[in-house]
């Protein structure tokens, strides 16, 4: 789509707009947490994209290039609305406790093997994931969204967020650990419920 538009062929214009407007809307919705802001940021991003379209160097770079513009728009929106202090996540906060069972060590975590694949993204769990992503501090959330939701490379993510690959890796890992911990707490609560019912 980007290649055609770059060569002046507008036949894919509508598809390009809808594809990226939806992507940017979802990214900003998870970043800003507000539907109205997400609508505004996605429209403003698309306008900037087309105003600067001659600055796109190759079609292969279109996704990181657009997300870079979206990220800047998002930051501007946040500056206007609220000041969010930066929070640093420490690795030690995510190392689970160990318990001794006879001669064996066991982690104090939920039973993840009990999570059936078909239930992965249904109903309540979807809301839990969305909530867990939104609760991540901004610096970690932006990396997780680009690396794990958009599945961009470490390098492309670094280019969008103006971070070195090493910083992207560190923030991604801590963001993932924070999400794992929140999902673990949710699974733990779910697994306690049937036991209580069964024992009654």
């Amino acid at each position: 789509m980007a290649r055609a538009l770059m060569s002046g062929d507008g036949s894919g214009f509508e598809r390009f707009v809808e594809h990226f407007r939806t992507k940017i809307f979802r990214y900003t919705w998870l970043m800003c947490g507000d539907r109205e802001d997400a609508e505004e940021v996605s429209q403003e991003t698309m306008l900037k994209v087309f105003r600067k379209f001659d600055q796109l160097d190759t079609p292969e770079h279109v996704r990181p290039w657009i997300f870079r513009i979206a990220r800047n728009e998002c930051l501007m929106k946040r500056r206007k609305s609220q000041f969010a202090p930066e929070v640093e996540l420490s690795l030690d906060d995510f190392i689970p406790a160990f318990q001794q069972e006879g001669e064996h060590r066991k982690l104090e975590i939920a039973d993840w093997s009990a999570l059936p694949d078909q239930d992965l993204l249904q109903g309540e769990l979807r809301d839990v994931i969305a909530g867990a992503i939104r609760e991540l501090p901004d610096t970690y959330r932006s990396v997780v969204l680009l690396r794990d939701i958009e599945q961009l490379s470490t390098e492309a993510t670094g280019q969008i967020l103006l971070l070195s690959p090493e910083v992207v890796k560190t923030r991604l890992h801590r963001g993932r650990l924070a999400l794992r911990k929140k999902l673990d707490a949710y699974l733990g609560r779910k697994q306690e419920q049937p036991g209580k019912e069964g024992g009654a």
Partner: protein
Amino acid sequence: MNRDQIPPAASQDCREVFALLSEYLDVELPPEECSRLREHIERCAPCVEFVESLKKSIELCRKFQPDAVPGPLPEATRQELLAAWKKASS
């Protein structure tokens, strides 16, 4: 060392796994470091459990797509986008 002989707390090796696990799973570690971690994970039951939980958590994120969609694009905005593209492409 077999599983029964592992000391009863997060050992230095376990801590290293926790610290480097995303890079390990993303195949972004140097080969020798990757081998060292794999060797530890294979003989450490708590690390296996933690690796599996993080893998599943990442998988959930990768499969997750927000179901929210933007409202319809106003015609005036669409025309504005089209005009901006035509101007930049001319």
